[in-house]
C-alpha cells in the first residue's frame, strides 16, 4: 500500500495539479519534502512510493535525494541547526559563532546532541549575509531563519525547540 498517498491524498493532488499531467515527474521535489516531514528523512519506502505516484524509477527518485543538500536519506537529529559560514558571514564572525555554539552544545559539526534532537551543520550562503551570524533550523517540515544571532539568542532558540519537543513527548505519553 502507498502510505504517502493514503495519508496525504489532498496535498498530493494539489502538488500534482501544478504540473502538466504528462510531466508529473516535476512533482518529485515537493513530494520529497512531504515525505521528509514524516521522519525527518526520506525513507527507502517513501522513495518507492513517490516513484510509484510519479511513474518513474526508484533510482530516479533516489538520484534527486542524493543531489540536493536539503534532502536526507539517513536519520539525523530532529532539528538541523544550519549555521552559515560562507564568505560574507565568515567576514562577520560566523566561524567563531559556530565554534562557540558547538562548544556550548558539546558536539562537533555534523554530530547529534545526546537527546537526538539537534544536528549542527555548516552551510553555504543562505541569503542573510547582512544579518550574520545567522542560522536556519530545518525540521518538522519547515525551515526557519534566525538572524543577527549571538550565542545567547541561539541557545535560547534551541532551548525553546527542546521544550517544544519535550512537551510533545509528554502530550503523547
Amino acid at each position, binding site marked *: 500500500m502507498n502510505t504517502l498517498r493514503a495519508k496525504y491524498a489532498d496535498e498530493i493532488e494539489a502538488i500534482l495539479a501544478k504540473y502538466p499531467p504528462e510531466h508529473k515527474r*516535476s512533482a518529485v521535489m515537493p513530494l520529497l519534502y512531504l515525505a521528509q516531514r514524516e521522519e525527518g528523512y526520506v525513507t527507502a519506502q517513501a522513495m518507492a512510493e513517490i516513484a510509484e505516484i510519479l511513474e518513474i524509477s526508484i533510482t530516479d527518485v533516489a538520484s534527486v535525494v542524493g543531489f*540536493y543538500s536539503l534532502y536526507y536519506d539517513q536519520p539525523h537529529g530532529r532539528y538541523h541547526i544550519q549555521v552559515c559560514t560562507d*564568505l560574507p558571514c565568515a567576514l562577520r564572525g560566523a566561524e567563531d559563532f559556530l565554534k562557540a555554539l558547538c562548544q556550548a552544545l558539546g558536539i562537533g559539526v555534523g554530530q547529534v546532541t545526546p537527546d537526538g534532537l539537534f544536528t549542527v551543520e555548516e552551510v553555504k550562503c543562505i541569503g542573510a*549575509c*547582512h544579518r550574520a551570524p545567522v542560522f536556519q533550523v530545518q525540521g518538522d517540515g519547515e*525551515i526557519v531563519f534566525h538572524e543577527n544571532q549571538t550565542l545567547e539568542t541561539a541557545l535560547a532558540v534551541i532551548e525553546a525547540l527542546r521544550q517544544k519537543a519535550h512537551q510533545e513527548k509528554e502530550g503523547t505519553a
Partner: protein
Amino acid sequence: MSEYLILRHRAIPGLERLPVYLEHQGFAAFKKAVTELQPAQIIQMVKDSGLRGRGGAGFPTGLKWSFLPNDLWPHYVVANADESEPGTFKDREIMESNPFQFLEGLMIASYAVQARVAYIYIRGEYWHIAKWLDQKIAELEQAGLLGENLFGTDYSLRLYTHLGAGAYICGEETALLESLEGKIGQPRLRPPFPATAGLYNRPTVVNNVETLANVPLIVLHGPAWYHNYGTDKSPGTKVFSLSGCVNRPGNYELPFGVTFRELIFEHGGGVPEGRTLKAVMTAGASSVLIPMDESVLDTPMDYESLNKFGGSLGSASVIVLDDSVNMAWLTYKTVNFFKHESCGKCTPCREGTYWMNRLAERIARGQGEAREVELLYQVARQMQGKCLCALGEFSTLAVVSSIDRFRADYEAVVTKEPVYG
C-alpha cells in the same frame, strides 16, 4: 536615494498587502497590458526601456522575450528566485516586502509571451517566502487578477511556486529547468537556449526576480521614463547587496553608475573603524578581486565599467574586504563554496574545484608550499574556458585574481620549508 523603483516598500508601508499595493497603482500595468496592449507592444516597450537582466549576465530582457518562436506551444515563464550567490539577498527582500510588484512583473512577462502557466523557482532555504508567495497568489486569484479569462479577455494565467532544495547550480537557468522537471540540477548544453527549448522542451523565458520587478513600472510609465534612471547602456536602478567588512551591510537601491565610493562609504558607512578598504568583489563569490584605492573608488558601477578590471557587475552583490582579510584565506572560502556546489557534470569543474579546494585549504592552513600556490594558479588557468557552464569559470576568478594581485598574502601563509615531497 530618494526614489525607489524596486524597494518601494521602504517608502510605502504595508505595500506587501494587496489593498495597499492596489492603492499605489498596483496591477494597473498588468490590466493595461492584458486589455490594451498586444504582446508584441509590450516586448517592444521592454526592449526600448533598455532593461537588462539582473540575474548576473545583464542580457537585454525585451530581446530575450522576442526570441520565443510562435510556432511551438505552450510557452512558459519561470522566475528565477534561486538567489544563492554568496552575498546576495536582494530578491529575498523584494519577495518578502514588495511581493506584488514582482508577481505583477512576472504576470506581464507571461502575457507578453502568451504563457498560461508560470513557475517561481525558489531556493529551498526560502521556504517561508514560498509559503508567503503562495498566499499572495491565492489572494490574487480571489481578487480575480489571476486565473481564467482575466478582465473578460480570453487570457488565462496560473502561477505556481516550486521549491528548490539546496543547490546553487539550480540558479543557472538550464539546471533550474532540469530541476523543475524533477531531475538532478545539472546544466544543459546551450544552444538550444531556453527561449527555444526550455521547460518540457518548450519555449521558455527565465528571468530574475529583480528583473521582473522592473517591468510593471516600465509598462506603466513608458520606456522613456525608465531612461531617467541609470546610465545610457544600463538604464534603471539596481539593488546592491552590500556585505562583508562594512558598517551598514544591507540592500541599497541605487541608479546604475553609482560609484564604489558612494555605495561603500556614503550608504554603507565605510569599513569598520581603524581598518582600510583593501578590495571589493562585485558579483559575490563569482568575482575577481578588485583592489581598491582612491582611483578605483570613483569607478561607476554598471555593466560596462568593470570590464577594465577583468570583472563584471554580476548580481551586484558587493562584498567589501578590508586589510584584516588575507586573500589566501578568502580564496579558500570561495573555492570551498564552488567545490561544494559543482554539479559534477563536466570534468574540469568537478575535478578542478576538488583539486583547488585541497590546495587552497592546505595553503590557508599554513601547510602549503610556495609551489602549491603556483599549482593552484595553474589548475585554475587549466579550467578556464573549458567548463560546460559558468560555475566552473566563476570558481577560478578569485583564485587567479588573488594570486595575481595579492601574492603577498600567499607569501605570508606558505610554509618556508616543504612539508612533503
